């Protein structure tokens, strides 16, 4: 089972953990992103996430399906925020339950690594003196 959500309201870790809970899974690994207060020593005021919604959801679903297949995951949950996020807020939660724990770590890491490479979501960092689309330029 896979649960993919792209939404503009606060993400809930417990909801993701509850979704993947399973009597036959021995290990659940969760990754929780957090808006950091600094990027390369520059103070971040807030972040803004923009998504191309239908494709972002489709790409997250692909990632979850690949991870489910490759690591024999029982359940995978990927929730991603859009909109304006303050410092300490959560842009992304990924929870993966697998029969054995090593696979849970690998699958969860695969999901977040791949999400950052392929899912059409863009993050703008807003500083006190300007703003920048993250990773846009070499």
């Amino acid at each position, binding site marked *: 089972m896979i649960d993919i959500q792209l939404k503009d309201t606060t993400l809930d870790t417990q909801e993701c953990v509850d979704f993947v809970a399973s009597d036959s899974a021995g290990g659940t690994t969760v990754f929780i992103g957090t808006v950091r207060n600094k990027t390369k020593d520059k103070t971040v005021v807030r972040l803004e996430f923009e998504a191309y919604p239908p*494709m972002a959801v489709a790409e997250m679903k692909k990632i979850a399906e690949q991870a489910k297949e490759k690591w024999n995951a029982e359940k995978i949950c990927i929730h991603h925020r859009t909109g304006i996020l303050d410092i300490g807020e959560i842009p992304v939660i990924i929870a993966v339950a697998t029969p054995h724990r090593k696979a849970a770590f690998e699958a969860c890491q695969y999901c977040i690594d791949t999400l950052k490479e392929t899912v059409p979501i863009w993050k703008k960092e807003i500083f006190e003196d300007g703003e920048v689309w993250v*990773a846009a330029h070499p």
Partner: protein
Amino acid sequence: MKIEILAFGIAKDIIKNRTLSLDIPAGSNVGFLKNELTSRFPDFGKLKSLAIAVNEEYQADDFNLSEKDEVVIIPPVSGG
């Protein structure tokens, strides 16, 4: 043919709009479109990467476009 293009993130800032209408030869491919975009808006050439999604799927340069396609400019993604 006329195609309607959607822009997100920095692409939206570069074309200074959310959408863009382009007249390109019928049967043009994604590679042609990227060249066209970069010559009209040189700032696209400064990005780390430039991808095109057609009907919600990434497509390579040799993919042929049709008039009814949903075409989206995908600048370097940075989710998570």
